[in-house]
């Protein structure tokens, strides 16, 4: 991107007028640029970085990445660097652990830059996007069978505190493969870019160990901003991860899986900045531009026509107050291509992964499944499972009120189906299932019901199945 870089000597200012939260306000700062990076030297001579959030008249509002503690009005010096924030990138980042600014945290040597990229990126021209339609087999039935993920999709996991979202994400990172038309997994695995955003030391350790254990570590770039790191850096950690992903995907032709956790921490950092600027708050104190800001991250997933690489995003967010209508999950759901919703109820029943399939959704599913991609019966089977399980859940609510006595035989069968569906289909534990195994299991469960209950499956497909023996010839096809 062609930034106009002034060649004049970088001037230093000592004109701070105010320090408020993560922000400093500067006077008599002519010629500064919006979003320009600044270097701030504190009274002890220690340097920290910041960025211009607003310029007006001759003063500027500057956000200080690692916080304003220790700054003063008289001796603090500010120098404008003449450029927007950039990240040094290189293919050698794979296997490394870095902070949000790209500095090594693993004791290794600094990254020798192959390129230096604007961390905000530029929007992909919608006219050159390729519609994501290649099936990713995650090995998890509730996802592959009912909420299928495709290469280039962005899908969040909505979790609640205490539920195993991290385990699920790590399992997906280890197992995810792209299946070819024959149903055979492509050998080429994903490169993983992992952004830890404001998570605890324990969680960071969990992920790094999981990556080691599954052999994922050497194809992973890890960016870490811990809960006790400066919160403003959370805004940069996410962007650093996505900038790296774009570089690996669109310069080095890699298929990249980006995992970001926890987006709730990201949004809180954004709110902190908005509050310090005394902006008019939107819903629940989050800024009115939260939607646009999140979109500027999530929309960096995708495929581009004529390029080999791709970016698939899996982001984790904890729903505050267990509330899916809270602005963070709500706006995320409005941007992402579906959502995987975890349920405390299932978790309590010992179901792992505790995915509640009813509110879960993958919008790319229809493009990624069917004849030649997964199987011809995939879409109708998924529709049927949904309809039956939804009925089962309704019946459970009903018997909670009126007791089981009033149920018909048909109702009882459906209740049994719903139980087995949760226990066997969803609750698969740590196993890694192929899509064939997933769909065959679905037929096996449906076989407990009379045929004419299965109205979402075309007649000819029902006829093809030998009804008494569910896991028959389909695989031999």
């Amino acid at each position, binding site marked *: 991107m062609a930034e106009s870089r002034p060649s004049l000597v970088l001037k230093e200012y000592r004109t701070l007028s105010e320090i408020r939260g993560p922000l400093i306000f500067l006077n008599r700062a002519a010629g*500064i640029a919006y979003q320009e990076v600044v270097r701030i030297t504190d009274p002890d001579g220690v340097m920290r970085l910041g960025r211009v959030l607003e310029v007006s008249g001759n003063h500027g509002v500057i956000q200080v990445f690692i916080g304003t503690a220790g700054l003063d009005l008289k001796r603090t010096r500010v120098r404008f660097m003449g450029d927007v924030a950039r990240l040094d990138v290189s293919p050698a980042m794979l296997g490394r652990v870095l902070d949000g600014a790209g500095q090594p945290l693993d004791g290794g040597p600094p990254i020798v830059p192959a390129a230096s990229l604007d961390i905000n990126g530029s929007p992909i021209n919608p006219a050159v996007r390729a519609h994501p339609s290649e099936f990713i087999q995650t090995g998890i039935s509730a996802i592959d069978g009912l909420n299928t993920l495709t290469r280039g999709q962005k899908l969040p996991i909505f979790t609640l505190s205490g539920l195993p979202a991290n385990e699920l994400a790590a399992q997906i990172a280890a197992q995810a493969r792209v299946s070819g038309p024959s149903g055979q997994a492509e050998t080429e695995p994903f490169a993983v870019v992992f952004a830890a955003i404001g998570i605890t030391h324990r969680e960071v350790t969990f992920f790094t160990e999981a990556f080691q254990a599954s052999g994922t570590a050497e194809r992973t770039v890890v960016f870490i901003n811990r809960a006790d790191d400066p919160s403003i850096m959370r805004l940069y950690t996410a962007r650093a991860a996505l900038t790296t992903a774009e570089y690996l995907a669109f310069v080095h032709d890699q298929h990249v899986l980006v995992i970001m956790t926890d987006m709730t921490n990201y949004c809180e950092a954004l709110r902190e900045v908005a509050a310090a600027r005394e902006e008019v708050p939107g819903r629940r104190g989050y800024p009115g531009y939260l939607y646009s800001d999140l979109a500027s991250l999530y929309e960096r997933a995708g495929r581009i026509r004529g390029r080999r690489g791709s970016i698939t995003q899996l982001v984790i967010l904890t729903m505050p107050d267990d509330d899916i209508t809270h602005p963070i999950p709500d706006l995320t759901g409005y941007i992402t291509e579906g959502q995987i919703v975890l349920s405390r109820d299932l978790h309590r029943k010992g179901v792992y992964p505790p995915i509640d399939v009813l509110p879960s959704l993958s919008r790319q599913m229809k493009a990624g499944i069917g004849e030649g991609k997964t199987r011809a019966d995939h879409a109708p089977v998924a529709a049927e499972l949904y309809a039956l399980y939804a009925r089962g859940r309704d019946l459970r609510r009903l018997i909670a009120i009126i007791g089981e006595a009033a149920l018909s035989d048909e109702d009882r069968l459906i209740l049994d189906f719903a139980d087995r569906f949760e226990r066997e289909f969803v609750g698969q534990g740590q196993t890694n299932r192929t899509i064939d195994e997933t769909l065959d299991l679905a037929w096996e469960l449906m076989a407990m019901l009379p045929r004419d209950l299965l109205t979402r499956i075309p007649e000819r497909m029902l006829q093809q199945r030998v009804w008494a023996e569910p896991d028959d010839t389909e695989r031999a096809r």
Partner: protein
Amino acid sequence: MSNKGRIIRVAGPVVGAVGLSFPRLYDVVRVGHLGLIGEVIRLAGDRTTIQVYEETAGLRLGEPVISTGQPLVVQLGPGLLGQIYDGLQRPLTRLSEISGQFIERGVDAFPLATDVPWPFAPRVQVGDAVGPGDVLGVVPETPVIEHRVMVPVGVRGRVSAIADGPLTVRDVAAVIDVGCGQLREIRLVQTWPVRQPRPVQAKLDADEPLITGTRVIDAFFPVAKGGAAIIPGGFGTGKTVVEQSLARWSDVDVVIYVGCGERGNEIADVLEEFPRSIDPYTGEPLMNRTVLIANTSNMPVAAREASIYTGITIAEYYRDMGYDVLLLADSTSRWGEALREISGRLEEIPGEEGYPAYLAARLSEFYERAGRVRCLGTGRDASGGNPVPRIGSLTLVGAVSPPGGDFSEPITQGSMRVAGAFWALSYDLSRRRHFPAISWTQSYSLYPLKRWYSRHVARDWSDLVGEAIALLQRADELEEIVQLVGPEALSDNEHLLLMIAQMIREGFLHQSAFEGEDRYCPLEKTYWMLKAFITFYHRGRRMLDAGQGLDAVRALPARAALARLKEEPAENAATSIKALVDQLVEGDA
């Protein structure tokens, strides 16, 4: 005097400047060394406030601001159809050729191909008197749309020259002597300011339905051609799928699809699908009747606001040629939020939920641009002889994305007041994968279309619809009773009603937008399906009256047949379903 000022403030998409002489509200300006496109949105003293349509990072205090002295306009002419534009009508395919796969700043390109020769066929002769809207000649823009080159608004006189044969958009098609020795050259391409509605002779009653191929809409909640409908719903409830189904199957001539602040992958989907999907009315690829405006959620927020106006102006232009046009906006909430964001940066006093006080006014101005109209000017019949009035229509369908799926918020409320059809999407239905998740209890249509249906489809159309809706509502009430006291409390008649309601929901209202045969349901099939369900109900009532009991009704073979009516091929649906209905009436099904 200069038209050049300098930047004194940058806050997100809002830039302040001083030093511009005589800036006018809504003038387009070029901002900074990169020449970013912006629009004047406020004037106070020497100070001009500008909303910038491109990313402002890197703009420096003191950089220049240059006024073009022109409002934001669109270029109108042959070659619009099949194109994909951003919110400012920049041709996105062309931009990708210039600057690659990512959108860079300060890049621009003319919206129409300038080197394509269009075979222009004149419709007037030298010496003819012409006025605004009169058709000077036509070019075949696509195999389905004849592009009518019209006399611009404000021009009246005699034709003093007229072209015949191939012309590029910038060539002169006609010269008009407007009197006092003044000549006006008319080219294939014309401009129009987007914020100004294009004039018409008269607005007419909207009394003909837009046929969509979606049963719940066509039967229960139709929108008139020239009317407006809104689709509010929480995330994932099916707004985009409904809009895309409308774009595919509606019986209109031209479709303008505005992706306003939504997903890039959805645009990619349309771009991949529409060129190879076939319009059921013309047999031609859908792209030949479609213009896409894409300002995705990661593209600059101010251009999101402009995209709605760019889209509707292009739509009005085709309406003025005498076509039925459908404008789909997904999502109007993102447009409203763009207004809110800009308003916040202007430090205006916020109204409800932070939206500016003028939100409701902007919404109604927008929806008022819908209508069935008598266009300016007259057409001529094919022989170029007798003048005939030209009727066109512009139907608006806006998706609304209420926070938390709660319809009490300002954009849903403001849009409800002005749109005549309300297709409320239900979170509960979508969770059950009942699609389209259009709630039959919350939705409504205010358009008086009964006469049309009884004249063009069947005399008993409205009776059937009325009975079905009443039945579904009664079933919802009964279900609540069951939830409280259990099913024993109901009579056999009530059980029958519950059963029929369930059958109608599954067999009639549920309609997958993706599966072959059922994606599009012709009106005739919709009618016969509905008739079959209601006839079955009446049959069941008769059986109960005759003391035959519910199980006998349940065992009727027609019950299973009804569940699969959707799969019936459209061509013979009328005959085969009619046969079933006859059997039900006679009592042998």
